[in-house]
């Protein structure tokens, strides 16, 4: 499936790790390291899927999610967090995330989430 995935996290190593996993699925990966950069990329690159951390410099994952869901974009978003609380999980679910991943996640959890998010957005 020819697709473009935007990965957003302030940890370079984690972004690279996710990129390798996503490229393993045959997708193209673009990277951003903070909130504003991610939002600029959404508008410039029109990714098919966004994988973002919850805690980011200058913004958070939910802000990115709201921009990504704006019409006519409607890009699906997977949220990752190293600091899981029931409140964050609830906020993510209310905002309509495609998947919610707790770090450290298993690679198959990530690939599964990416696959199903892309599948639903195509159908």
């Amino acid at each position, binding site marked *: 499936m020819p697709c473009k995935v935007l990965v957003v996290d302030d*940890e370079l*190593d*984690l972004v690279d*790790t*996710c990129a*390798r*996993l996503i490229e393993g699925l045959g997708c193209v990966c673009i990277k951003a390291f903070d909130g504003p950069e991610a939002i600029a990329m959404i508008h410039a690159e029109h990714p098919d899927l966004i994988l973002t951390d919850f*805690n980011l410099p200058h913004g958070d994952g939910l802000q990115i999610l709201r921009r990504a869901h704006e019409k006519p974009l409607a890009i699906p978003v997977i949220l*990752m967090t*190293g*600091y*899981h*609380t029931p409140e964050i999980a609830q906020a993510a679910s209310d905002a309509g995330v495609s998947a919610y991943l*707790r*770090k*450290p*996640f*298993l*690679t198959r959890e*990530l690939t599964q989430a990416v696959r199903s998010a892309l599948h639903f957005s195509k159908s």
Partner: protein
Amino acid sequence: MASKSGGSSGSGWYSKPFRLVLIYFLVGGLWAVVSDVVEVNFALFPVAIDRLIFVAMTAVLFYIVLREYRIVIEQSRAAERDSAARVRAYFASAAEGLIVVDSRGLIVDANAKAEEMFGYRELELIGQPIEILVPERLREKHRRERREYLKTPRSRPMGFGRDPIGRRKDGTEFPIEVSLSHIGTKQGGLVTGFITDITERRNLEFQSRRSEAMAAIGTVAAGVAHELNNPLAIISARAELMMAEGAKLGLNSQLMSDLEVIQRNSQRASRVATELLTLARQPQKAHRPISINDLIAETILLFREQTMRDEIRIETQLADSLPEVMGDRTALSQAIVNLLSNAREAISRAGVIRITTQVSTGHPDEVLLTVEDTGTGISEDVLPHIFDLFYTTKSTGTGLGLWITRRAIREHGGEIDVTSKPGAGTIFRITLPALSRSADADETLKTG
């Protein structure tokens, strides 16, 4: 102040000016008339009249002066009585306990609030030594402090280096706050103590410190979770990626299992922070009957390998047919783990950790668990703080272990205390309420 303010109004010699003046007038008049009668047999009557007028005039003047004097004196007497009554009323109705002690340390006066606070009847405290209100173990010290105070009396709060403790008539103790002042009187120096029962304040302080501590743990745990989980996510995912690559390249099985161990343990490490978060969130979990002996046996297994390496011997002396306790297995196990870790760290090279269980002597409804080590011991200045949150003397300590331990024990209705001798070792004693045999049977009925 206990004496009655006595006397009816107008008891002084000046209180009946008219009678006094009348006496003066009669005596003066008699003199005016009789002094001439003796000489001239009533011949000089008009002279006697003059004298009488003089005596009458001075009597009137005398009367006016005396009456004024009486009014002034009586007003000042009344004011004095009023202020004494006011002081008396303040004293009786004060919200604080008030106790007056003389220089020998005997109670001269105590107000109703003080009597109520210490559980004594009216006037029962008068004449008693002040030490009656001090716990036995502090009495000698109090006597010394009192003598010291009398050398340089001044108004100041009282303290024995820490907060003073009051002793009620029934022997119970309670935290108090005392401020002292010294009054010099004709009968010698008196010391007044204003006493406040601060039990309630202490409880509130404890509650608020506790919730602050919980909030602090929550914040720390959140920070730890966030900081740890990012690198752990990278380690875990990279290890998995290597395993995938390795499978393609046909890497040998030893390397593959090493990678699997790395991956599994990075997942495990992330649970530490998660558990810390959980701890700050929900302290109370489901309680079940637990055998403390079994719990100790399990916990020791975790330690055996490490302690054998360190030449530390673990000895146990577990009572047969020890009653079970109702509790949260994880929390109690954590408490024992924390005590054993501390014991191990206290022993520098070789030593013994002794664990015993028994039914408390004199308390058949209590299980006593002791953990004793032959380690370095805890110095006197550190000992009172070891259960404080974030208090630690170890470079790698978190200051959480013993705090969590005590919290767990207290949540089970138990108590933990410690005695230590520097150079000889430390003993922790835990008491937990035992599950009564009948309750035990009920539980079996329910579950069976």
